[in-house]
C-alpha cells in the first residue's frame, strides 16, 4: 500500500525523548487540530453569515441567538481561532528556544512564521466581518495604517478598502480574503509546512551518537497521544465556547464614520499601544514589521554557534543570543499589551 498523508505525518517510529510533551508542548499537532476545527466551524458559520453592511451584524446576531446551537458554532469558531494564534505563537517560541530552526529547517521556520502572519490576518479579517461597533475602531485604524505607508499607501488602501472609507466594498473584500484569499495561501503553505517537517527529518533531534537514549515510540503511540491531546483540546474549546461567548456589539450604522476607540483584537493590542507614541507609519507599520523581521532572521543570526549536538532540548547554549533577543522582544510585546489593557482597570 502506498503511504498516505497520515503516514507521512506519522513516521513508523520517532525518538521518545523528543516526542515528550514537555519538549514539543504538542503545539504543532494542536495547531493542525485547531486549524481543522476553525475551518469546519467556519464552513458552518458561512451558511448563516451575510456579507453586507446592513445584514452582517444582524446575521451574526441571528446565528448567535436564533439558530439552534448557532452560538456554539460561532463560539467554537471564535475560540479555536484565538487558541490557534496562541498555539502558533507557543510553537514559534518552542522552536526558537529549542534551536529547532537550524538548517535544514530554516525554510520551514520561515514557512511557519508566514503561517502565523497569515493566521493573524485571518483572525483580523474574521474579526472585521462582525461589522459591529466593537470592531469599528480597529477597522478604521487598521486600514488607515495601510494608508500611512509612503508612496504606495493610498493605492494599497484603495485596493484593500475599495473606496475612500470602509463600506460595502470593504466588507465584501475582507470576506473574500477571509474565506478565499488568505485561506488558500494558508492551506498551501500549511501543507508545505507539514510536508517539510518530515522532509527535514521530523522533530529536531541531536545526531544519533549524541543521544542519551535511543528509545523510540511507535506511530500508533504517537497517534494515541495526539488523540488524547485532541480530546483535551476539544474539552477546553467546549468549556470556553459555553462559558465565554465571542464578543458581539450593535452593528455599524450606515454612514457612521466616527468610531470611538475600542480595544483592538488581543494579538494587535501591542500595535495599538505603539500607535499612541507617534507617527502611525513608524509605530504602526515599520516597528511591527521590524519585529517580524527580527523573528524571521532568527535562523540566520550566527547560527554556527549552535551545534546540532545541542538539539533536542530546551535552551541550548549556542542559541543564547537569539533566545535573549526573542525573550526581550516578547517581553516588550507583552508589556505593550498590558499597557494597552491598563485603561480597563480604571
Amino acid at each position, binding site marked *: 500500500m502506498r503511504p498516505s498523508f497520515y503516514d507521512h505525518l506519522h513516521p513508523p517510529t520517532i525518538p521518545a525523548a523528543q516526542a515528550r510533551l514537555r519538549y514539543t508542548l504538542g503545539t504543532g499537532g494542536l495547531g493542525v487540530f485547531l486549524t481543522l476545527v476553525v475551518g469546519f466551524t467556519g464552513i458552518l458559520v458561512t451558511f448563516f453569515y451575510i456579507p453586507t453592511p446592513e445584514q452582517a451584524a444582524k446575521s451574526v*446576531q441571528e446565528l448567535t*441567538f436564533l439558530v439552534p446551537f448557532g452560538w456554539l458554532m460561532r463560539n467554537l469558531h471564535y475560540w479555536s481561532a484565538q487558541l490557534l494564534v496562541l498555539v502558533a505563537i507557543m510553537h514559534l517560541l518552542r522552536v526558537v528556544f529549542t534551536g529547532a530552526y537550524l538548517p535544514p529547517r530554516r525554510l520551514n521556520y520561515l514557512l511557519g512564521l508566514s503561517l502565523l502572519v497569515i493566521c493573524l490576518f485571518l483572525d483580523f479579517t474574521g474579526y472585521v466581518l462582525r461589522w459591529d461597533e466593537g470592531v469599528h475602531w480597529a477597522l478604521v485604524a487598521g486600514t488607515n495604517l495601510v494608508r500611512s505607508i509612503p508612496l504606495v499607501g493610498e493605492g494599497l488602501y484603495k485596493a484593500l478598502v475599495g473606496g475612500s472609507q470602509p463600506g460595502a466594498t470593504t466588507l465584501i473584500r475582507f470576506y473574500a480574503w477571509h474565506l478565499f484569499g488568505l485561506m488558500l495561501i494558508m492551506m498551501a503553505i500549511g501543507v508545505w509546512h507539514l510536508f517539510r517537517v518530515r522532509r527535514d527529518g521530523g522533530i529536531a533531534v541531536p545526531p544519533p551518537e549524541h543521544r542519551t537514549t535511543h528509545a523510540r515510540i511507535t506511530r500508533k503511540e504517537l497517534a494515541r497521544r495526539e488523540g488524547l491531546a485532541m480530546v483535551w483540546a476539544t474539552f477546553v474549546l467546549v468549556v470556553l465556547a*459555553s462559558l465565554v461567548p465571542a464578543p458581539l456589539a450593535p452593528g455599524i450604522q450606515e454612514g457612521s464614520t466616527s468610531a470611538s476607540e475600542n480595544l483592538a483584537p488581543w494579538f494587535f493590542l501591542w500595535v495599538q499601544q505603539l500607535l499612541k507614541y507617534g507617527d502611525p507609519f513608524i509605530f504602526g507599520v515599520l516597528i511591527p514589521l521590524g519585529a517580524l523581521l527580527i523573528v524571521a532572521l532568527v535562523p540566520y543570526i550566527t547560527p554556527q554557534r549552535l551545534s546540532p549536538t545541542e538539539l533536542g532540548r530546551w535552551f541550548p547554549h549556542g542559541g543564547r543570543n537569539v533566545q535573549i533577543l526573542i525573550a526581550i522582544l516578547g517581553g516588550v510585546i507583552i508589556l505593550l499589551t498590558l499597557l494597552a489593557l491598563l485603561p480597563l482597570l480604571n
Partner: protein
Amino acid sequence: MRRGLLLASLLLFVASTYVLWQQYRIPKPIGITPSLTGQAEYCLTCHADLPEISQSHPVETFGCVLCHGGEPLALAADLAHSTMRGGANPSDLSVVEVSCGGEKCHSGTSQVDRDHIQRVITSLQATYAGAIAQVRYAFGAQPDLTAQMGVYAVDGLSAFDPTTESSPVLKAFGSNCLSCHLSAQPLEGDEYSRWSGCSACHSPAPREDGTLVHKLTTSMLYTQCDKCHNRGNYNLADMQFHPRDDTPTDRLHDYYQPIAEFTLCEWTLDCVECHTRQEAMGDGHIYNNKKEIQYIRCRTCHGTLDSLPLTYTINDENDLALRLAFLNPIADLKVGDTILMTDKGEPLWNIRVLPGVEGTTPTYELFSKAEGQRSTFKPVIGSTCQQKPDLQDARYCHECHATQR
C-alpha cells in the same frame, strides 16, 4: 494514558451535556414582523407580558424597535438594549424626532395638527423660554421680557448657558431652577417623579417601587400635571425651589397650592378637560410667557352674558375632534354632533351641545377625559350672573364662584 483518556473523555462528556442544557434553557424566541418595518424582531421573547402601549400603536403594526430602537435580533439583554433610544423613554426630546417623528407619525407632516414634535420643541414647557426671559430681565441681563433663550437653541431662541452669565444669581438660577422643563431630570421624590419629553405628560411615571408602566395616554389626571405644577415655588430671592409644605389628603386640597383660588369645575375636573393641546404643547410659535399661550377662560365653555360659547358641527370624518375622540373613546362622537370650540378654533371635543328646543338656552354635556364621567352644564346666558362681558379673567369669576377650603 488510558486513565488520562478516560478523564478527558469524561470531562468532555460533562461539558457536552452542559452545552445541551445551555441550548435547552434558551427561551423559545418569540418573533413578530411589524407591518411598518417588515423586519423581524424578538423583543417579545422577554417582554411578552408588556401591555400594548396604546390602541393607536398596536404591536403588530409598530413592533418595539421602531419607537424604542435596540437590537431586534439579540436575545442577550445587554446587547438588545444597548442601542435603545432614550433608555426606557424614546420620547425624550433629544431622540424624539427619530423615535416618534416622521411624516407618517408625529412630525414633518403638512397635515394640520399632526406635527406635534415641531410644536412641542418650541413650546414654553420644553424651552422654558418664558421663565428664562423673566429672570434674566429681572436681573438686568436683557432689556425686556421678550423670550431670547431656551434651555436649548431652537429656531428663534439661543441656548441659555448659565456659565456665561455674569450675574451669580443667574448662575444659581441655572443650577437650581431648571428642573421643570420637558428635558429636565425631575427633582428627587415620588411627588416629582415623571418622564421627560412626550412621556412627561403622556405616560404614567414609574411606580413607587421603580417598576415602569408601558402606557401612552391622552387622558391625563391632574396628578400627572402636578408632577411639575402646584408642587411648590421657585423663589427669586434665594434662587431655590421651595416645596409646598402642606400635607393634603384629598383632591380638593391636593389639586392647587394652598394660596390658589379656584372654582368647583377647576378642581373637580382634570386640567386636560379645559386646557388644550396648543396650550400644553405649543402651536409652533415662540411665546414670551405662559399668559400668551394659555388662552382658555371660563367663558370659553360658559360664554358671557351677551354671547354663547363658540361651537361647530362636525361634518367631516377626518375632523380633528373625531381623531381625538378615537384616541380616548369616552364619548360616542360622530359626524353631525355639535361641539364647543375655543377662540383659536381648537375643538373641545369632549363637550357636546345637547339637542334642545330652538330659542332656549342650550345644555352642554361634558365627558371627563380621565374617567369618561358625564356631567352637564348651562351657559351664563339665562343665569343670575351679572359679570360684564369685557371683564372675563378668571379672577372676576372667582369673586363669586371660588371654592372655600
